[in-house]
């Protein structure tokens, strides 16, 4: 018997249900009205109405990163799609699985400069992993299934499906998800066994090993984090994490040497520079990690595990490339290590740890909270200490506060840290926190924010109010675009061009106008009470924390410098001027 024909919009919703979707973040408009009608007529999928499409994508990113599921977005044609572009690029850079449905003008109007028309597939081609324009209603279901497969397989990323209005209004046949998508696109999962054996041999012989892991471990799932743990313990090597990898290895463990890179710890960066064997797990040697490329870890043999072959040998040539899923390859390495029981040079490892302990003794993250001016590091540290024992998710905006959060808030579990690493999107944190809270209604979700970033998507406070999401916005307010000010201080003679904002809102009143609680701390003695009150309130809160306006993020590898040329604090900068080549870099 032939199946009953369905309307295109119903086919889309049915396919989403089959893919296990329970929440969509979106904003309606003319071209997607049939889809909104289909949403109205069902209860399986809940739609979260954001206040701007950019917020929808970041919310879906937070949702995806904190659950491991694909985040789903629905926006209209034209401006709906163009507003989503920043979020899509963000998801591409940070490898976040997103499916974004965009409305489109009917097929006969495409190319006619119709109202709210834009070339969505053309605009989003370079900022998505893949995109589709569906022209036949009978292809709809298969395209949706394939889009989910592409978004979550291999190196995850955003996928756009452009849906002309006539296609979602036409009648057609539904097709269940089969194996077609997997046959078409199937990235390599299992690593090459001889390369894995070589990796085990190198690690076994290492006198000064280091394991450097990134967001790929998080993307591979909690099992990969567990295996990373096993391997670090088996090898006795120090472990460092990238910004995107925080939580993949417990920060509280003594083998963790902290985050590496531009604002990483002294011990992590010097260990990277001096190691003899480096195992890179699901990270991509980007410029924030390597510093000056020709001076990057000059004496080491490098092993690189990545599911994306294009990440290997892109910036740094490696000796043992292993293409495959981090979880699968780590399992093989752990198994081979246990079978081979390599005879390690224990004396050398002891000496290596002795060296690392000396670097650690520099206490590069030390700060002094004196007097009543609140140090941002102290504010994050107290937030960390006062949120222990609760299931806590942290999102951030982009800038100094982001780095302080990475340095002073310790993560012991994966999927609890959401930040815009690759693209560095100001305004990411508030909508991302919203998405996390939707996925984890009972957890504590805190957006560690700066006052400039958070204003970029402040309209989402309205969404937070509508869905009664108890998101806490913890603003480190220095009245400056802090990171811009810091670079102007270090590189441009302290000429603070346009980095100071006059007429900032009164964040307490702003919170109240969005039906949230507003709190403020201006003195160190008030900080703890404000944090405690924020945590006690069963609803959304904006806590405005007035911090030291002059504080900078340290330690720092100045742009164009090598790992062993770190600045540890403000007094370090005078004798090491930043080179002209360095100034060109961002």
């Amino acid at each position: 018997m032939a199946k009953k024909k369905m309307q295109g919009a119903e086919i889309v919703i049915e396919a989403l249900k089959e893919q296990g979707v329970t929440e969509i973040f979106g904003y309606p408009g003319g071209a997607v009205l049939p889809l909104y009608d289909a949403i109205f007529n069902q209860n399986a999928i809940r739609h979260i109405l954001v206040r701007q499409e950019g917020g929808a994508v970041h919310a879906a990113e937070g949702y995806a990163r904190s659950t491991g599921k694909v985040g789903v977005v629905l926006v209209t044609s034209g401006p709906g799609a163009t507003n989503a572009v920043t979020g899509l690029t963000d998801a591409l850079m940070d490898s976040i699985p997103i499916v974004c449905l965009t409305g489109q003008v009917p097929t006969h109007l495409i190319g006619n400069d119709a109202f709210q028309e834009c070339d969505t597939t053309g605009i989003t081609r370079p900022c998505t992993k893949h995109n589709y324009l569906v022209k036949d209603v009978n292809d709809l279901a298969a395209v949706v299934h394939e889009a989910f497969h592409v978004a979550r397989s291999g190196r995850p990323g955003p996928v756009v499906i452009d849906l002309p209005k006539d296609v979602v209004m036409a009648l057609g046949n539904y097709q269940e998800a089969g194996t077609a998508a997997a046959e078409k696109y199937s990235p390599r999962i299992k690593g090459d066994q001889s390369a894995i054996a070589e990796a085990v041999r190198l690690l076994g012989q290492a006198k000064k090993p280091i394991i450097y892991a990134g967001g790929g471990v998080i993307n591979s799932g909690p099992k990969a984090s567990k295996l990373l743990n096993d391997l670090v313990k088996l090898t006795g090597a120090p472990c460092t994490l990238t910004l995107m990898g925080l939580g993949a290895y417990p920060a509280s463990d003594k083998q963790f040497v902290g985050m590496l890179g531009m604002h990483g710890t002294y011990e992590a960066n010097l260990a990277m520079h001096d190691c003899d064997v480096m195992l890179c797990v699901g990270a991509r040697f980007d410029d924030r990690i390597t510093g000056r490329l020709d001076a990057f870890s000059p004496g080491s043999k490098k092993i690189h595990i990545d599911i994306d072959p294009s990440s290997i040998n892109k910036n740094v040539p490696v000796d043992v490339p292993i293409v495959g899923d981090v979880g699968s390859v780590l399992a093989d390495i752990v198994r081979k290590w246990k079978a081979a029981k390599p005879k390690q040079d224990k004396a050398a490892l002891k000496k290596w740890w002795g060296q690392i302990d000396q670097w650690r003794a520099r206490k590069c993250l030390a700060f002094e909270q004196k007097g009543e001016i609140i140090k941002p590091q102290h504010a994050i540290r107290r937030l960390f200490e006062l949120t222990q024992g609760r299931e806590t998710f942290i999102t951030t905006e982009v800038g100094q506060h982001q780095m302080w959060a990475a340095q002073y808030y310790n993560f012991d579990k994966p999927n609890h840290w959401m930040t815009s690493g690759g693209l560095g999107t100001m305004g990411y944190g508030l909508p991302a926190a919203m998405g996390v809270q939707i996925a984890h209604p009972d957890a504590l979700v805190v957006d560690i924010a700066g006052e400039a970033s958070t204003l970029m998507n402040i309209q989402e406070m309205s969404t937070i109010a509508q869905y009664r999401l108890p998101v806490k916005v913890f603003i480190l307010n220095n009245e400056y675009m802090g990171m811009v000010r810091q670079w102007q201080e270090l590189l441009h003679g302290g000429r603070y061009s346009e980095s100071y904002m006059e007429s900032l809102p009164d964040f307490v009143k702003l919170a109240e106008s969005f039906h949230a609680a507003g709190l403020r701390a201006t003195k160190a003695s008030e900080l703890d009470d404000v944090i405690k009150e924020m945590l006690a309130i069963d609803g959304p809160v904006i806590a405005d924390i007035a911090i030291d306006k002059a504080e900078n993020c340290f330690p720092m590898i100045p742009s164009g410098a090598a790992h062993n040329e770190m600045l540890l604090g403000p007094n370090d900068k005078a004798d090491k001027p930043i080179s002209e080549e360095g100034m060109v870099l961002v």
Partner: protein
Amino acid sequence: MSEPSKEVNRHTIAVLVDNEPGVLARVIGLFSGRGYNIESLTVAETDHAAGLSRITIVTTGTPMIIEQIKAQLGRLVPVHKVRDLTLDGPYVERELALVKVVGKGEKRVESLRIADTFRARAVDSSNNSFVFEIVGAASKIDAFIELMQPLGLTEVSRTGAAAISRGNKAI
């Protein structure tokens, strides 16, 4: 690891892709977006039943860049196969050009003579013009065009390279 070679070489890369809208834009966008060179690019459907097209790209770069180009091409969803013909062994590379030469008298005769040596065919002629069709390696076509320059060369249309490996192995 030892310092990778900085030597820039010319590579001919064959890419098998789904014949679907946007696939060429994806490939070209990849090259422009990441700053890779395209010396020539040819594309046409080669397997109608399977809906496959073949793109032949001639590019230049250091070994590290060439490796990146292949990896970046390989991760595009509609791309099925990427082969570096230059690295994979002997291969045949051919290009077709149509060359219009306008002239009279001795120059006209001379252009015909040269065309004959190059095994180019006159596919159109008028009282004072020829259109020659020439097939061969890019260097041969370059040489032909150079010789036609003083003889009244007015217009050239080139296809870019088509290439295939020698021997019994298929892509």
